[in-house]
């Protein structure tokens, strides 16, 4: 079983509520789920959708064909006419859309009227719709009814029971009406013995990774698609002992984070490209003062405001070279919510270990997409306190914040914990942290800050993931959020080609070429295709800059939308030369 459900409607109509509820119900009943969202930069109106893929097999991306279309506005049905599969069913409320559609594909359910009749209020129309979708799928209502009880637990029994009735009404009507439904009846009993799964989005796991990594201070200025990190951490701030500060602007945000980090706590900021542009000077400050900081950078299509609620992988090069002067940094680009959790936690470790900025480079697609997991392995989260605190700090015979060391890293003393003074400076400085002018000290500081750290940093970088045919003719390469869709594409290609996927989640510095042999794998492959969600092929260029390697082809998408399996496979097939 592998169904795609799309809920279309205007902002504010509740497509997110329906989508999230359905996703949760499926996950709880043990299905594999993948969801993604498409919405405009407005609060009410316009046209958005929420797409859910539900399957008995693991799923990692969205497909192009819609099996069940829930139409909350009049735009939905004509807009997606071509995307409906042959078996597709459209469920809608003709009184809301002020239009009736004929034919077996259309299921007209009076969401609002049923809500009023059964639930007591027309605002429960979305609950009716949710029940209806489950009905169409021939699924039972138990999980939804339980979820309703939880969701409305604070609103009291009356609301719970009204919503339950509304759900039931929708469900019954769908079962009743959708006799031609191709899905009906197929799911009975299928849930038996399946494990409950968690359903979680990238934006949540970045926040969770930050908490797990010991983040104590998060300063940011709201900006899509990063705001969710701030919201989630804020919701848990009291529980975990974290201060979340909304700064007056992004410049303040990163400087606050650096102040907090200097004071002795793990600190983070988050933003999108436009906000990050304002943080660039602060990034360079982190560089010269060797102050650890973690930055969650959520990409969206630029330049400038661009398409603020959509997706792109357009800031890789920007991040690689951002900042005046030369200093080390790490860029992680998680491919899945699970990776986002682990990489964010690890970002704190590495930022503190090497006293550098570490980025989590994500995008709207990863941020909003939900994946299902049986669990997330927290045993892999490590925490080493690299600071010198309290008595250990006092015990040092002397302390100079930027003392030269064999490996370039000087212990980070916590100011005030000892009589030793902690001094740092944005000017080039001596070991004690004071301004200098001479070339010799400058040279030694560049060696300490940059040359000594670089090789050690590169050793921390994980090799790319290799998936698919061990002796591939075609290697599909990608990075970051495209992991899921590339993996599914390679699976499909494997029917006809010796194909493999080479996927990078640790993109800067690149993993040492010899460490995992990825470069020779690329060289060996007959064809290498780099797939990126941008216009200029930024990773392709990065790999060439670092290694000289030249891909034989590429697929790029830059319309603000993510890749989907079917169209990507088609495009890849077009690129792969017949041999």
């Amino acid at each position, binding site marked *: 079983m592998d169904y795609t459900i799309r809920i279309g409607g205007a902002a504010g109509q509740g497509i997110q509520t329906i989508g999230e509820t359905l996703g949760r119900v499926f*996950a709880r009943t043990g299905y594999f789920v993948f969801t993604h969202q498409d919405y405009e930069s407005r609060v009410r109106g316009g046209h958005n959708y929420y797409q859910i893929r539900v399957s008995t097999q693991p799923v990692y991306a969205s497909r192009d064909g819609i099996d069940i279309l829930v139409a909350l506005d009049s735009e939905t049905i004509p807009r997606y006419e071509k995307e409906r599969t042959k078996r597709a069913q459209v469920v809608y409320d003709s009184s809301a859309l002020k239009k009736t559609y004929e034919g077996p594909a259309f299921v007209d359910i009076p969401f609002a009227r049923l809500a009023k009749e059964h639930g007591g209020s027309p605002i429960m129309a979305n609950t009716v719709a949710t029940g209806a979708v489950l009905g169409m799928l021939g699924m039972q209502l138990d999980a939804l009814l339980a979820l309703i009880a939880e969701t409305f637990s604070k609103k009291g029994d009356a609301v719970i029971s009204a919503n339950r009735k509304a759900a039931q009404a929708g469900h019954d009507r769908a079962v009743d009406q959708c006799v031609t439904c191709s899905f009906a009846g197929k799911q009975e009993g299928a849930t038996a013995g399946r494990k*409950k*799964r*968690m*359903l*979680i989005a990238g934006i*949540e796991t970045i926040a*969770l990774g930050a*908490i797990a*990594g*010991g983040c*104590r*201070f998060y300063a940011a200025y709201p900006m899509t698609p990063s705001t969710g990190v701030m919201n989630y951490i804020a919701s*848990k*701030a009291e529980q*975990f*002992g*974290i*201060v979340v*500060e909304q700064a*007056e*602007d992004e*410049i*303040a945000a990163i*400087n*606050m*984070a*650096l*102040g*907090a*980090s*200097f*004071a*002795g*706590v*793990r600190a983070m900021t988050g933003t999108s490209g436009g906000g990050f542009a304002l943080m660039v*000077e*602060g990034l360079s*400050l982190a560089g010269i*003062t060797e102050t650890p900081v973690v930055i969650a950078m959520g990409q969206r299509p630029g330049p400038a405001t661009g398409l603020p609620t959509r997706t792109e992988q357009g800031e890789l090069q920007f991040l690689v070279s951002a900042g005046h002067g030369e200093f080390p940094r790490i860029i992680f680009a998680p491919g899945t919510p699970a990776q986002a959790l682990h990489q964010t936690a690890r970002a704190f470790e590495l930022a503190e270990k090497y006293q550098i900025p570490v980025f989590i480079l994500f995008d709207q697609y990863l941020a909003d997409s939900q994946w299902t997991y049986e*669990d997330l392995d*927290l045993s892999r989260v490590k*925490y080493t*306190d690299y*600071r010198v*605190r309290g008595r250990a700090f006092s015990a040092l015979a002397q302390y100079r914040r930027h003392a030269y060391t064999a490996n370039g890293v000087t212990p980070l003393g*916590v*100011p*005030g914990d000892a*009589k*030793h*003074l*902690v*001094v740092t*400076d*944005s*000017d080039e400085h001596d070991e004690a*942290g*004071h*301004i200098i002018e001479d070339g010799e000290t400058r040279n030694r500081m560049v060696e300490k800050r940059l040359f000594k750290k670089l090789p050690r940093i590169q050793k921390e970088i994980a090799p790319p993931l290799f998936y698919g045919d061990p002796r591939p003719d075609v290697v599909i390469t990608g990075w970051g959020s495209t992991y899921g869709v590339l993996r599914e594409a390679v699976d499909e290609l494997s029917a006809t080609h010796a194909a493999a996927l080479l996927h990078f989640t640790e993109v800067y510095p690149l993993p040492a070429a010899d460490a995992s042999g990825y470069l020779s794998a690329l060289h060996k492959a007959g064809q290498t295709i780099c797939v990126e969600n941008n216009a200029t092929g930024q990773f392709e260029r990065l790999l060439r800059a670092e290694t000289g390697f030249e891909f034989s082809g590429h697929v790029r998408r830059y319309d603000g939308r993510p890749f989907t399996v079917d169209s990507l496979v088609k495009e890849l097939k077009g690129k792969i030369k017949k041999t």
Partner: protein
Amino acid sequence: MVTAKEYEGQVPAWCPGCGNFAILTTFREAMAELGIEPHQFTMVSGIGQASKFPHYIRCNTFNGLHGRTLPVATGLRLANHEMLVIAVAGDGDCYGEGGNHLAHTMRRNVNVKLFVHDNQIYGLTKGQASPTTGEGTKTKNMPAGVISEQLNPMALAVALDCSFAARGFAGDGEHLKGLIKEAVKHKGFTLVDILQPCVTFNKVNTYEWYGKRVYRLGPEHDPTDRSAAFTKALEWGDRIPLGVIYRRQRPIYEEQVPVLARSPLVRMPAAAPDIGPVLREFF
């Protein structure tokens, strides 16, 4: 007892006769009299002549970027609100490049002590107009003279309900020392704008010019009356009042952040918390 001598840091790179020297001496004395040891406070500064100040004081120091003194200081305080955090900036630094942070830090009322060395000029970059440069002043890049109206930091502070806003003068060390000590003791964000002659680039606002005009505010001025404080803040020209122009005691930010009631962040465990239970919420 800590003595003023113990605060002596690097050799100042200021011009001979610069007003900053007087502030430096006064500051060291004030700290000694307050009995605050070098490691017990952190100075944050930006870039400019004034911002070199912390190098000449022995203390914990974060000498950051031009204009970005206050966000760093805020981050520091939020991470460790048991640490005394002193911010030093130039007039260009704080009222020009960093103006937005000043406004919002006043609103926040973070318990940071800000001292602005106001020489009414950009010193380090060799004499451009700052926001407090007088109208008509000619500079290399403004040969026709400054057009923008001179910024009034005290009026700004009153408008933003700054918890403590005062004016000092490098040439009146006794009075300045008193202000510094009062500011440090005040609970809340404090702005002390210090008139600081720049002997090299500001040929108008000299020791003499200030000397003729400044006077110490007496008890007849009630700094807690906001409207009166605003009117007093507008006084500039023939007579320039020194002292606390405005004061309003209101809760500091750090005390209103619920999680900080427990302890400063920096005292909380440096360890990975167990997020297992919250992960359950995603099932």
